[in-house]
């Protein structure tokens, strides 16, 4: 079986985590296409997506210290500068200036639509700009919903959403009081759907991004093309949470 995580996808942009989750001096540990990442923000607000491995003795940088301008590794205290990933200080040799090869592997990343987007490699033939991955005709105010971690492959989730979601959710989970319809695919990792509130019969456009962690684990990042008014915010968020929780459960159980 060929993996969905073909090497060619390393040139694609993926949303990896909601921007709001990368708080002050935090280091977020994630994965993309089997590659572990350490995602952090410096005190100037710049975002970094690094290989989660100190080049010295392999310690995860996500257990290190975000000093606001650098990451300090927990094992021997080497420090790496925001953006460049260049080592700036080696405590064992305080008077030595680390040469350029003492550098963390860094990846391109940007913040857009409420997410941190990462790509692992530059793809020369397909150097698309990020807008083309994400077709928003009219830009309303967007709402990032809670991202859902699933133990299922990206292919599995995509196929189920396209082929089964509409019929199965209605029949089997009437209590969800919301459903998805008109699901279409923008590209391998982005779907668009109409989300219908069964009580009010109102519908909103939703983008569903699939973020492959590994060959058999995926994060679903649902993005609503609407703002939610404060009075109903909690109820609405719970509704969507139940919807995607159900989708996760079904995709994980039937994952044969």
């Amino acid at each position: 079986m060929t993996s969905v995580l073909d090497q060619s996808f390393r040139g694609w942009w993926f949303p990896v985590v909601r921007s709001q989750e990368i708080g002050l001096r935090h280091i977020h540990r994630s994965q993309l296409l089997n590659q572990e990442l350490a995602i952090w923000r410096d005190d100037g607000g710049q975002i970094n997506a690094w290989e989660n491995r100190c080049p010295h003795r392999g310690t995860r940088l996500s257990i290190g210290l975000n000093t606001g301008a650098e990451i300090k590794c927990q094992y021997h205290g080497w420090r790496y500068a925001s953006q460049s990933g260049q080592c700036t200080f080696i405590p064992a040799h305080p008077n030595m200036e680390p040469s350029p090869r003492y550098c963390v592997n860094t990846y391109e990343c940007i913040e857009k639509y409420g997410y941190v987007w990462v790509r692992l490699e530059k793809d020369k033939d397909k150097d698309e700009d990020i807008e083309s991955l994400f077709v928003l005709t009219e830009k309303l105010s967007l709402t990032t919903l809670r991202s859902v971690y699933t133990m299922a492959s990206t292919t599995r989730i995509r196929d189920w959403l396209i082929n089964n979601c509409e019929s199965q959710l209605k029949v089997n989970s009437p209590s969800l009081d919301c459903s998805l319809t008109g699901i279409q695919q923008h590209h391998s990792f982005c779907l668009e759907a109409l989300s219908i509130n069964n009580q009010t019969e109102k519908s909103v456009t939703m983008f569903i991004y699939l973020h492959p962690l590994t060959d058999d684990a995926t994060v679903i990042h649902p993005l609503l093309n609407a703002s939610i008014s404060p009075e109903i915010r909690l109820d609405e968020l719970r509704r969507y949470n139940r919807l995607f929780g159900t989708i996760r459960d079904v995709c994980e159980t039937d994952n044969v």
Partner: protein
Amino acid sequence: MNKQNASLSNGGIESILIDDWYVVTDLESMYKKGRHRTRLFDVPICIEYEANCLSVIREDSNVKLPFGEVYGYLWTTLGNPIDDIVRFLECEENDRHVVTGGSIAVHASGLRAVENFFDLSHLPIVHKGYLGVEAKSEIFPYEVTVDENNWIIADGCHIFQPMVSPMGDDGIDVEYMFRVPRPYMVSLYKSNAIETNRRDFIALFVQPVDQEHCVAHPLLAYLKHDLDASTVRLYMQLIFAQDKPILENQQPKRLPLDTGDELSVIGDKISTTYRRWLREQGVNYGTTQDG
């Protein structure tokens, strides 16, 4: 155990590793528990203590394994060791506490655990306030040699350590010597604060459970003075508890031997020597060369 059987069942593990003795449990806990099941080089083994008798059985073939009781530990082998279980002179001196330090399971290659034990430059960072201070983290040149017994010796390793004393946070320059007698075994000698011409001794006997799991069995031989044995043991456990989360967050779990895989500095000379020494002896088990 006949030779042919042994070589068949040892899954192609290099002789330098398999034909040697490994600690698999401490004796004191064996007498209490009566039975202990564990693994050595992926092979399930069962140690039993019944009617004042110890036995070690390979569970995949039900073969009885030879064993020895040395320094409070039970040692066994899956192969045919040429040498006896390693002895250390310091442990025979009777003005020392010779104690096992509490065995700790670690989800990492045992070779990573050995490297951590002789790693000087992490002392002021991981063990700051105990075995070093961050403001005095510089590592000065030290000498690394391989002696006539093929042991790695690193001598003249200096580190500034805080003094645990009621007088304040003074410190002293402490000198270490490290010795690596086997791929999965390492020992250190550390200048004693009271008797400046003698040294405290710690060894780490690492049991390779599989290529990415190990159990570290420490042995301490500390000059008694007015220390008691339980203080010595607790201190060891405190220190090791600071290392364990680091070890379990190293990637990859197996030790890379290619010089290009991880970057080193001069202060890592013992580590770079160790990796070359492993490579030259064809050690694969627990390294990224294997699997």
